[in-house]
């Protein structure tokens, strides 16, 4: 079984910007270990000459006419913002 350490879990949680408690880190280490072990059965497959599929349909880029359209009104955009001031979304300080 692939072991995922608590430090690895904390590293991944940080990458995902997800706050987790020590208890959760322990639980996730165990559960992710089990899921990853299960997923490693894919190693039975010889995929050396197989192209990856990111998208099932054969699609090509479609370009639309570059015509300006009105954007969303500021009031609408701010309607769901948890905090705003002077028509802008407010967040805690980014720089000390």
């Amino acid at each position, binding site marked *: 079984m692939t072991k995922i350490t608590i430090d690895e879990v904390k590293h*991944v949680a940080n990458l*995902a910007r997800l706050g987790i408690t020590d208890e959760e880190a322990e639980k996730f280490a165990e559960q992710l270990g089990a899921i990853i072990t299960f997923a490693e059965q894919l190693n039975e497959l010889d995929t050396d000459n197989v192209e990856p599929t990111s998208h099932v349909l054969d699609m090509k880029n479609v370009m639309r006419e570059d015509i300006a359209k009105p954007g969303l009104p500021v009031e609408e955009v701010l309607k769901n913002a948890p905090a705003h001031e002077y028509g802008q979304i407010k967040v805690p300080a980014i720089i000390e």
Partner: protein
Amino acid sequence: MSLFDHKVSDLHELLHKKEITVSDLVDESYKRIQEVDDKVQAFLTLDEERARETAKSLDNKIGTDESKGLLFGMPIGVKDNIVTKDLRTTCASKILENFDPIYNATVVDHLHKAETITIGKLNMDEFAMGSSNENSGFQKTFNPWNLEKVPGGSSGGSAAAVAAGEVPFSLGSDTGGSIRQPASFCGVVGLKPTYGRVSRFGLVAFASSLDQIGPITRNVEDNAYLLQAISGLDPMDSTSANVEVPNFVQALTGDVKGLRIAVPKEYLGEGVEEEVRQSVLDALKVLEKQGAVWEEVSLPHSKYALATYYLLSSSEASANLSRFDGVRYGYRSPNAETLIDLYKNTRAEGFGDEVKRRIMLGTFALSSGYYDAYYKKAQKARTLIKKDFEDVFEKYDVIVGPTTPTPAFSIGSKISDPLTMYINDILTIPVNLAGVPGISVPCGFSNGMPLGLQIIGKHFDESTVYRVAHAYEQATDYHKQKPAL
């Protein structure tokens, strides 16, 4: 007898003969919700006042050209991950508890154009991650056939509401079986269209390369009408396909003579309950009698689908759900001094367990050092799984099997082990990975719980899927059974 025992085309006729009004239909919905929804708990939000007003204005249009559309005046329920302007859309997550969308999903615009009436928003597993609705951030939905069983998921509310007669039909979404599995568990008809058939604009993204919106209905004909209304190219969704939309209802000929059916041995093997297996064999006999022929085939990479799916869908989800950061909309943690803490605390407090687990799995699979071993490997496995389907479809018109290995399970019985829960989707997931269409239609009962027959077709060949489903439905009456409630 409920009005919703009629198929939609009959309701349409009743409306135009003035035997009923649109307001009657809307009344029927809210009356039934009043009667049973405290038991079933399918709805998260009702839009009663607006629905009743709309019904009145539509009643004034009866008889005019504007009322000719078949879906005119029909009440509908919408899964709560499909955004509806000025109607709360939560994805059953605390992080979106008070989210009030400022635009409509393209499918909702299509519904408005068809003049359906949105009754309310339906419960689901949080962000569509789950197979039982036990992962909803707000409430559990119960299976109308037995309130101790799950309705399935993630579109559990959408399937339960239709089965309970609260709405004649609903919209769900399907990433790994989330329409077909609850349709099977609740004894209703659910279709996942071909990837690209229906616009995903305004469907809150879970796994963008797999997600599709589709109809859940009481019968195949209604399903075809509803898919007709929501299909087609959308400039707002670059993955919606520029492919002609055929007339799906015209495909319902009842004729399956000479139709070639493939039955994958992997779909009737280990883990599939005997009664489920038997119901599929019985269904094949029905189709055989109608002139179809079937043979056993192999989809050799089926056993790798589950692992492939969880790596890919979780990876895509970890990227898609990064937008929920407490800045522009949704829940914001009050406990944060810095921006990074704001992100972390908001997400820690706003997301449920299963969502966190999948974000973690996806972030891990995409992280430096693991990308090739997990994410890219899964993308390659997906190619092999897709090729299995292509090979079979060279010789056969449809693939038939069960929708799920077992009927609906008891609430609480699988919640503690994520892997056991994931195994429910083993027969539906390959269809999403291949991007092909699949339907679940009622095909029997096991200990009073409904079973579903899955019919899978070629890319953009929903017509054949519907034709087979309809022919089978005509010869059986499973779809006419109703839960006692």
